[in-house]
C-alpha cells in the first residue's frame, strides 16, 4: 500500500509539471551533416515497489525492470543511400554506457528489398526483443517473462546432478552450481531483450512476406559481443501478413550454450558433444482502429551434460506464452494488459523433492494491468499493477505497483 501511495504521489507531481516540460522538450531527432547523421534519444524513469525478496523483475544486468532509469542515445549515419551505420548507446541506473546496438546496414541491390546487417544486431527471433528497443512500443512497464525472467541455468556453471539443479529452483537471480564458475551469478532468460547478439543477418521483406536469418556468436538466452565457444548460433524467422493489420511469424534458433572456458576445463567429461540452446517461437499481432493485440509462444530447450547421479536425463525445456493488448480510450489515454506464463519440464532428483518428478525451475504466472497518458506526443506517463505467482521459492506471490515516465525525441 505504501508503494501504491508513492506511485500515486509521483503521478500527481508529474502531472503538475507537464506544462513546463511540454514547452521545453525537443519534439524530434536532431540532424547533422546535412541530414546524413540523425540522432535521437530517450529517457525512461520507472519507480515502484522493491523486489529484493522475490526477484520477479530482475534482468540479466541485475536491474529491476520496474525500478529503472534508462538513458539511451541512438544514431544513424547514412554514408550512402544504401549504406548506413546504426548505433544505440545506453546507460541503466547510472552505470557505464554500453553500445547495445552497433552495426552496418547495407542494401546490396537498389530495387530488391533485401538488407544485410553486421555487428551488434537486432535479433531475428520472435517479436518483442526488437520492439522493446522502441521506448514507446511497450504498452506496459514490465517485460514478458520469456524475455526477462531469469531461469536458474547458466552458460558458465552447470549442475553436477538433477539434485543440484532442483536446489536452485526459483533462484535464477543468483544461481550457483558445483561445476564451472564458482561465483553465484544470475541465470538466463529464454530470450534476452536487454542484450543483443553479435554477428550478421539478412532480411528480405515484401508487402506480404518477410524472412530473416542470422548467424551470431551467442545464443538467445546469452547474447555475446565476443564468441566464447567457437560455435555460432543460427536463427531465422519468417513472417506473413495475410490481411491488413495481421502479422504472423514463426522463429527458430540453435546455438552452442555452454561457454568455451567451461567446455575446455571439463573436456574429459564433456567430450565433443554440443550443449546448445534450441528454441522455437510463434508470434502474432492484430491491430485495428484503437486496438492492438499481440501474442507470442516460445519453447526453449537447453541440453546440459549428464555428469552425476541422479542424471539430468532429458534436455531442459521451458515454455512461455503471453497475450497483451492495448486499447486507446481517447487521444491521450490508453489501457493495456498482459497475461503471461512460464513453465518448465520435470526432472527427477534423489534427495531433493524425495525423488518426485518436479519442474526444474519454479513455474511463474504474471498479469500486468496498466494505463498510460500521453502528456505530449513523445512524453508518456504509465502506471501498472503486476501480480506474480510462482510455484516455488521463498516468496511465491508478490504484487508490484509501478509508474514510468518515458520521453523520446
Amino acid at each position, binding site marked *: 500500500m505504501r508503494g501504491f501511495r508513492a506511485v500515486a504521489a509521483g503521478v500527481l507531481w508529474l502531472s503538475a509539471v507537464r506544462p513546463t516540460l511540454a514547452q521545453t522538450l525537443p519534439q524530434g531527432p536532431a540532424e547533422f551533416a546535412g541530414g546524413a547523421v540523425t540522432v535521437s534519444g530517450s529517457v525512461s524513469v520507472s519507480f515502484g515497489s522493491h523486489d529484493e525478496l522475490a526477484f520477479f523483475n530482475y534482468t540479466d544486468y541485475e536491474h529491476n525492470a520496474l525500478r529503472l532509469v534508462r538513458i539511451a542515445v541512438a544514431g544513424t549515419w547514412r554514408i550512402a543511400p*544504401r549504406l548506413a551505420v546504426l548505433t544505440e548507446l545506453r546507460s541503466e541506473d547510472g552505470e557505464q554506457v554500453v553500445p547495445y546496438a552497433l552495426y552496418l546496414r547495407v542494401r546490396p541491390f537498389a530495387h530488391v528489398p533485401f538488407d544485410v546487417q553486421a555487428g551488434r544486431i*537486432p535479433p531475428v527471433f520472435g517479436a518483442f526483443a526488437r520492439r522493446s*528497443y522502441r521506448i514507446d512500443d511497450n504498452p506496459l512497464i514490465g517485460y514478458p517473462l520469456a524475455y526477462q525472467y531469469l531461469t536458474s541455468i547458466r552458460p558458465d556453471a552447470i549442475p553436477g546432478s538433477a539434485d543440484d539443479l532442483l536446489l536452485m529452483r526459483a533462484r535464477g537471480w543468483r544461481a550457483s552450481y558445483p561445476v564451472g564458475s564458482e561465483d553465484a551469478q544470475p541465470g538466463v532468460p529464454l530470450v534476452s531483450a536487454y542484450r543483443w547478439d553479435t554477428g550478421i543477418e539478412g532480411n528480405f521483406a515484401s508487402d506480404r512476406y*518477410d524472412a530473416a536469418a542470422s548467424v551470431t556468436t551467442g545464443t538467445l538466452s546469452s547474447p555475446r559481443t565476443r564468441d566464447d565457444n567457437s560455435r555460432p548460433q543460427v536463427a531465422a524467422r519468417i513472417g506473413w501478413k495475410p490481411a491488413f493489420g495481421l502479422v504472423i511469424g514463426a522463429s527458430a534458433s540453435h546455438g552452442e550454450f555452454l561457454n568455451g572456458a567451461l567446455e575446455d576445463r571439463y573436456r574429459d567429461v564433456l567430450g565433443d558433444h554440443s550443449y546448445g540452446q534450441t528454441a522455437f517461437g510463434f508470434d502474432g499481432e492484430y491491430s485495428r482502429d484503437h486496438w492492438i493485440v499481440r501474442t507470442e509462444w516460445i519453447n526453449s530447450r537447453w541440453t546440459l551434460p549428464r555428469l552425476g547421479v541422479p542424471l539430468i536425463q532429458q534436455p531442459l525445456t521451458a515454455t512461455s506464452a503471453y497475450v497483451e493488448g492495448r486499447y486507446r480510450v481517447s487521444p491521450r489515454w490508453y489501457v493495456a494488459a498482459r497475461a503471461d506464463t512460464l513453465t518448465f519440464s520435470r526432472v527427477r532428483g534423489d534427495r531433493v523433492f524425495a525423488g518426485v518428478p518436479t519442474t526444474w525451475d519454479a513455474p511463474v504466472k504474471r498479469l500486468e494491468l496498466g494505463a498510460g497518458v500521453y502528456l505530449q506526443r513523445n512524453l508518456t506517463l504509465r502506471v501498472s499493477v503486476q501480480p506474480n505467482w510462482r510455484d516455488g521459492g521463498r516468496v511465491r506471490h508478490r504484487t508490484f505497483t509501478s509508474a514510468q515516465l518515458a520521453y523520446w525525441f
Partner: protein
Amino acid sequence: MLACWPAGVVGRAAAGTIRGRVEVKTPIVAEAERPDVGALGMSSIREPLDRRRSVVYLETAPRAAFDAREEPHARMDQRNETFVPHVLAIVAGTTVDFPNDDRTYHNVFSLSKAKSFDLGRYATGKSKSVRFDHPGIVRVFCDIHSHMSAFILVFAHRYFAVTDDEGRYRLENVPPGSYTLTVWNETIRGDAPKRVVTIPEGGGDVDADFTIR
C-alpha cells in the same frame, strides 16, 4: 494567434488584393526519422519535405470575413509515409478527410488544444474525417510512423493563403482598411514577422514580401 475579430469599417468600396512572396532561407531537408535500430532493414526512401511552405494571413479581419458559408471540405493524404500537404490552412468549420493511400496502416492523431483526435488504425483505400471548429494550430502525427507530421492551421476568417512552390501568395477580395499581415512557417522560432498593410478605398493591389531566416 489565429483567433480573429472584426476590425475597421467595411463599406461597399472596391476590394483589393494583397500579394507577395515569402522567402524561407531554411534549407530543404528530408523529414527526420528516428534511428530505428530495431529494424531488420531499411525504410523506404521518401520525398524531401518542403519546409518552405508558409501561411500568410490577416491578424484582424473585416466583418464580412465571418459570414456563414456552406461547410467546406479539405483533404490531407497519407502517401509514402508522408502527410500531403504538409501544411494545410482551413477556415473553422471545415471537415478534413484523411485518406490512407499507403499499403500500410496509419493512425492519424493530434493532441493539440485546438483539436484533439485519434482516428485509430485504418487500411489502404479507407478514409476518416475530422471537423475543425476552433481556430488554432493543430499538429498532426501518425502513431505508427513517428517521422510523419503535418500542420493544420484553422482560421476564424477566410483571409489566409498558403504559399506556392515559389513562395508566392495572394489574398483577394480584401476590403479597404488597414490590416496586420502575419506569416506562419514551421521553422520560425520566436515572434512571427508582421507588416501593416493598407488597402485604399479604391481597391487595388498591395505588395508585401517577407524573408524568414
